[in-house]
């Protein structure tokens, strides 16, 4: 059977079951049926209750993700090819890798305020690590034969970097970007739940504490949709950029 058909079938089955449970008379107050959520979702879109928060959230997560992953990829690639940078950076990065970066939120808040900047810094910090590690190993696993061959053909060091090392590291770089993207959403909602005056994490908290379960579910659905959509976008970009890889493995 086609996996896509099974996937959609399962989704329909789960939603149907949920609908049945949520429309029974004895269901708890905080369980809403999928149909109700859809109705509230449309209403929240029209009333303008939702979109400003989506915008506020994206304005925090996207700069953080772009900043952190760009620095991570660049430094990771460079550390993968330059020994002195490798010795300086890698021990610190690998040592602090398993440390939960969210614990630095309070101190960053103290230094640069409780506004958007501290959230962006924390998201960038968290996104840095997977990108650095993956770009580092991607650059280090460049086939030597290719480097030797290009040097032999008279390529300069910068050319070897740009034409050999970077392309051969790209598949791992994309793997790192995908992890960072997922992390950026987790960090975004946690920082917004911890303290914010706008954004989806704030909306979820506010809806929860004012017992507006409709708004709570609407924001959760929006979070899920944003996470899913951005992941799909990244996969699309990877298919574009790595078209040669798909062609060679086919």
């Amino acid at each position, binding site marked *: 059977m086609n*996996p*896509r058909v099974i996937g959609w079938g399962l989704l329909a089955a789960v939603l149907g079951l949920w609908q049945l449970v949520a429309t029974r008379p004895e269901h708890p107050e905080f369980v809403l049926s999928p149909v109700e959520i859809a109705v509230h979702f449309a209403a929240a879109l029209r009333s303008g209750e939702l979109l400003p928060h989506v915008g506020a959230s994206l304005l925090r997560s996207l700069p953080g993700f772009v900043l952190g992953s760009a620095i991570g990829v660049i430094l990771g690639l460079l550390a993968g090819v330059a020994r002195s940078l490798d010795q300086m950076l890698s021990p610190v990065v690998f040592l602090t890798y398993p440390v939960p970066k*969210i614990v630095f939120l309070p*101190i960053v808040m103290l230094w640069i305020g409780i506004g958007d900047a501290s959230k962006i810094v924390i998201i960038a910090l968290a996104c840095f690590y997977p990108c650095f*590690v993956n770009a580092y190993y991607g650059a280090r696993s460049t086939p030597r034969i290719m480097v030797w061959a290009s040097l032999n053909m008279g390529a300069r060091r910068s050319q070897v970097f740009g034409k050999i090392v970077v392309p051969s590291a790209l598949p791992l770089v994309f793997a790192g970007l995908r992890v960072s993207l997922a992390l950026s959403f987790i960090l975004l909602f946690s920082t917004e739940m911890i303290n914010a005056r706008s954004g989806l994490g704030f909306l979820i908290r506010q809806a929860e504490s004012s017992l507006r379960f409709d708004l709570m579910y609407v924001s959760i659905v929006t979070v899920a949709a944003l996470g899913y959509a951005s*992941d799909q976008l990244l996969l699309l970009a990877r298919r574009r950029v790595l078209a040669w890889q798909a062609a060679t493995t086919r």
Partner: protein
Amino acid sequence: MTRSLVMGVLRRLSLVLAGLTVWELVARSGMFSPIIVPSLARIGRELWFLATSPGSLVEVWQSLFRGLSGFALASVVGVTLGVVMGRSAVAAAFLSPIFSGTYPIPKIALFPIFIYLFGIGSLAKVVLVFLECLYPIVVTTHAGSRAVNRVLLWSAANMGASRGRILARVVVPAAAPFIFAGFRIALPIAMVVVIITEMISSADGLGYLVMYSLASFKTDRMLAAVVVISLLGLALDRLMVALRDRLVFWERLDSYYAE
């Protein structure tokens, strides 16, 4: 020879030493109040206080207990699901769309619902840890049990091993390097989720200690708690590597963070 060795060690430590020196210089310069940049000595004193007071050990235990129980649950369920998905086409056809479809969705958004379902105590946090840890473990175990050498499976079946025996004695050991790769991804995630949930809503645990110290302007204690959390994350990772090297002794760890 020795000279280059010394230079190498110095270069490895250079960033850490430079960071600590800059920190201490800034703290002593009097440019900022000790609340914003407390000196290393103050942080050390608070670290000593945390290490010796029984109350803070309870916080450490709370966080550890939540993180490890969620992780343990996820590892049992995740390995089982991953192996079943890897060895049964029917199970894979039904389960893999669920996992690949919900993989990029941030599970942390479900936390408010979990609070309503399981209360504000440990259970909601453990369930969230379980859910976040489940995905990497299932994905790597699935990949590992699909990559088992067929000759091993055939010879086990040929020697009369039952299906269950093949799963337990051939598939799981053969997939062990992959399974441990999943564990190594999931364990830091477990600690991250515990700390986040404790920062958002809790009355105990290390995440709570961080937020409480911040709210009472005890920045030195907050930073000491941050150090404790960092050391805990590091120690757990080292323990996992040691366990892996014990159990998967036939394969050298040659992937991430090998150093």
